[in-house]
């Protein structure tokens, strides 16, 4: 079993995610509703928790249906928000952020009633991209194909609304209806992809390629889409490769690669379009600031380091230490788990009563006291002092057996 084999299916799923989310990301940046996916994902997660409360575990298809119904409800809410927000000069992002916060708070309240569900919610938020299987690719492909079909048919109208809703409304487009179609298909997509990849990765898949594409191309939607796809493909493959090379969790690694690409892209943009001397100055400045930050962090760290702590928390796959040699050597045969033979009647008496106390039932008690090396006197003394009926019965029978044997 190789790492590549292991990561083939996750990579396939990741590429599907790149395909659909780059597209939605371009719309979302145009609309200025960046956190809408977080809100929808949280509402969908809330649906999953409620499903758990009514007896549907997260692996039940009913749970997914609950999530979907909740997310579609969220889509209606989002479509209804736009005119109300804009009419009062409130940015829609404010209402979206509040929706996210309310859904999260509700989820926390529901969680208190279903702690087991909490674990699964946590799972759904960190994502399980690594566990994607071949079947997941087919399922994701089917869901996304359905969504894509809607967008092939209504794509032009949806784009008009995304780019300039007021102009579209003047041209006779029913903005609220188009918004609903957009958010509903988006909700279906996000609900599904969050279950595969987790909220964090889905958010990055939505926003990062679209951001890069819009940074580097002022051109049309189609051109930006292609740039986004290429960037997404390259970053995904690079992220997966880094995850294999460094044995790192796949999702966060891909996100880290995106961060790197965005930082480099931003730096290049900042250095472009200025004269060569200014460029050199800026580059030197960046290097100096980076160096200074590292130096400060290092200086701050040193006095706080606890060396014992540092040693105790080793690598992830901790190799167990071999047996300390002194333990392996100092065992003689007298250390066998069964008690060693003894002639001391006090020892034998204590041993007998302990064995009787530890025994489970009449049979076990009889077995416990029927030790041929046990002197008759010890058994007789135990019988004389015993107060427990079951012990007495066992000791009596035992005494008979022993006196027979001795005779």
């Amino acid at each position: 079993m190789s790492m590549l084999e292991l990561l083939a299916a996750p990579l396939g799923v990741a590429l599907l995610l790149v395909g659909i989310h780059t597209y939605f990301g371009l719309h979302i940046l145009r609309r200025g509703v960046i956190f809408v996916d977080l809100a929808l994902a949280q509402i969908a997660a809330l649906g999953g928790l409620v499903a758990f409360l009514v007896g549907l575990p997260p692996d039940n298809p009913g749970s997914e249906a609950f999530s979907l119904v909740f997310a579609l409800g969220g889509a209606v809410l989002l479509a209804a928000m736009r005119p109300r927000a804009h009419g009062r000069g409130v940015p829609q992002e404010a209402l979206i952020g509040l929706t996210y916060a309310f859904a999260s708070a509700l989820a926390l309240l529901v969680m208190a009633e279903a702690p087991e569900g909490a674990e699964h919610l946590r799972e759904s938020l960190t994502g399980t991209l690594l566990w994607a299987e071949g079947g997941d690719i087919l399922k994701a492909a089917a869901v996304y194909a359905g969504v894509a079909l809607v967008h092939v048919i209504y794509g032009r109208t949806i784009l008009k609304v995304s780019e300039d809703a007021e102009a579209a409304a003047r041209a006779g487009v029913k903005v609220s209806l188009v918004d609903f179609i957009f958010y509903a298909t988006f909700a279906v997509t996000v609900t599904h992809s969050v279950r595969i990849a987790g909220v964090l990765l889905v958010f990055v898949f939505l926003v990062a390629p679209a951001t890069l594409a819009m940074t580097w191309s002022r051109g049309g939607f189609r051109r930006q889409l292609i740039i986004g796809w290429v960037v997404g493909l390259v970053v995904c493959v690079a992220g997966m490769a880094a995850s294999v090379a460094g044995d790192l969790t796949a999702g966060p690694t891909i996100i880290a690669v995106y961060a790197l690409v965005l930082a480099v892209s931003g730096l290049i943009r900042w250095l472009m379009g200025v004269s060569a001397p200014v460029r050199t100055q800026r580059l030197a400045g960046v290097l100096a600031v980076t160096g200074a930050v590292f130096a400060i962090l290092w200086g701050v760290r040193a006095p706080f380091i606890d060396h014992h702590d540092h040693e105790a928390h080793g690598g992830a796959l901790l190799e167990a230490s071999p047996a300390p040699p002194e333990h392996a050597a100092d065992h003689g045969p007298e250390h066998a788990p069964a008690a060693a033979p003894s002639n001391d009647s006090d020892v034998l008496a204590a041993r007998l009563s302990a064995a009787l106390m530890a025994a489970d039932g009449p049979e076990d008690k009889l077995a416990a006291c029927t030790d041929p090396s046990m002197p008759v006197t010890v058994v007789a003394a135990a019988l004389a002092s015993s107060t427990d009926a079951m012990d007495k019965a066992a000791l009596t029978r035992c005494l008979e057996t022993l006196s027979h044997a001795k005779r």
Partner: protein
Amino acid sequence: MQTHEGKMTMTTLKQSVLTLLPIFTVAAPLAFSAPAAQAKVKVVATLADYSWVAQQIGGELVTTSVLCPSGQDPHFLAPRPSYAVEIGNADLLISTGLDLELWLNALLDKAGNNKVLPGQPGFVRAADGVPLLEVPVSADRSQGDVHVYGNPHLNTSPMNLRIIVHNIALGLARVDPAHTSDYVAREKHLIAELDERAFGKELVAILGGDTLAKLTLKGKLWSFLGERDYKGQKLIAVLGGWYGRLRPLVGQSLVAYHRNWAYLARDFDLDVSTTVEVKPAVAPTAGHVAEVLAAIERKHIKFVLATSYDNAAQIETVARRANIGTVVVPLHCGPQGYFALIDGWVAAMSKQLGGAQ
């Protein structure tokens, strides 16, 4: 060799090939079987305690690795690609076998190693034969029970570990029957050392480890030792080891962070019903903290017991407000092994109890 002699009339080239052939026929199996005969049994354990046991019993015959590193909450393990690869290449997989390592099933699906699936010879269910505590009466989780089979934190009692040692020895003998006698011998040694560290050499010599373990598992250790006369005193005077040093702990009440400590509580007749968290994974409310503080007062609780991965800030807050101590210890063993882990627990707790160090 006879067949080769019959072909001596062939060309020189063929002859030279044929003279080499016997060398190959002798050397090749040697070359391939030599590493196979010495191949170590690859043991993968979910928890460090299990891998430590496997290393003690297997010695140079095995290699061990751990999926959940010490200091990490085994309830929640973030998946890494290498975990599935480790299991894919394993000869023996050791897991608690309850619902502690919930992440293991997904790993097993991914690893595609049929040898180590539950029920196969290559799978050791550590919990086999361990009398489980806190088994829920109803399975509806209304009490916030994360664990439907019972409390899975088995290693909090050395007497449970004693049973686990046996299970792991059986597992090693199953996948590597040629070395059964080695595994059996080292299992005996390990259990003997565990018994002595637990109860002291003298008491083990009098009663035997098996009987002491049985008494402890039944919760009868303290009543028996306290009442039984032995050479003019009570037998408990002879008790040494971990259990002897923690004698002041018997019958006490403690505050725990999470319900990890059921088996320790059984061994020492403890009341650990007061927990800082309301239910597993549910953060405490103000009312609950007030209840905990009241319980500390009422039950004369001396310290808060928590694992190093529990919420340190909450533990500190509770301890400071109640003006009691804290014992924050790792729940699973580190590179120094299980005996060192329990030594650490015993030292930390007896310090809080004001007992001997």
